[in-house]
């Protein structure tokens, strides 16, 4: 069965401040002279290899998993699930 690489990105919603991103922006990037970078949001990144018939099915499996197991907390997080490419 073909394998697909799926990326899961979990970020805080706007209503939940992100002190890690704020600190990276202020103390590293702005202080380091890259003033064109205006904001940073830090998140969590998972890369999954999934067996499925096709990309759509692979994405559906991960979406079901993320919702069933609460991979993100829907009160404060957004969760993006996207196909990266066919796994090597």
């Amino acid at each position, binding site marked *: 069965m073909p394998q697909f690489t799926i990326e899961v990105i979990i970020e805080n919603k706007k*209503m939940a401040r*992100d*002190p890690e991103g704020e600190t990276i922006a202020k103390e590293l990037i702005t202080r380091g002279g890259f003033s064109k970078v205006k904001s940073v949001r830090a998140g969590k990144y998972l890369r999954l290899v999934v067996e499925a018939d096709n990309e759509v099915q692979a994405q559906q499996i991960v979406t079901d998993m993320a919702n069933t197991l*609460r*991979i993100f*907390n829907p*009160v*404060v997080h957004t969760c993006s699930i996207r196909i990266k490419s066919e796994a090597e």
Partner: protein
Amino acid sequence: MKVAVIQFPGSNCDLDIFHVLRNVLHVETNLVWHKNFNGTDYDSAVLPGGFSYGDYLRAGIIAAHSPAMKHIKEMAKEGKPIVGICNGFQILIESGLLPGALLRNQGTAFICKWVKIRNETSNTPFTKTIRKGAILDIPIAHAEGRYVNEHDGIRELNENEQIVFRYVDNQGKTSENSNPNGSMDSIAGICSLERNILGLMPHPERASETILSPFSGSDGLRILSSLAQI
């Protein structure tokens, strides 16, 4: 009254709460590995502090799927008192037994210090002997203790008197300075709608013997002693 202290891989306040319940309060208490826990054997359960599963993915989320949590949910349904302290509070949130989220502290640092909290309600089994408005000295020790909820969620907690403890200053007032981690509404602890599940970030088990307190107090005992009386 028979209490279980549930041990997850990475729990590290389990022996402290066990000591207080068994040796200070003389409550029949067992340490129980999370895979061996059977809720029908106990009248109450405590989820202790620590770093279950290394806080991987999100503090509390992996332990929230432990077999023990099925029993905890069953006990909660039966109205038995459940207490989650620090990582235990995070587990209760992530298992959906308490609403909201506990995120990285606003200052990003791990905070370990004594704070003051105000009891906001005597209408829980855990605070029924503590006057509303009473100020307690108690330590916190966490990196992810910033309570966050949607606007409506915070409103519902207030309307239903579910906010049990708030961080306050020496005068007993909430303020930005007295809020150590940036929690919304200065929330330090909440209870379930049915009032039998309590989650709090501060550590009552570390404030239960005068020898351990810089204030020579034992305010944590005022919360934990409820488990001896139920």
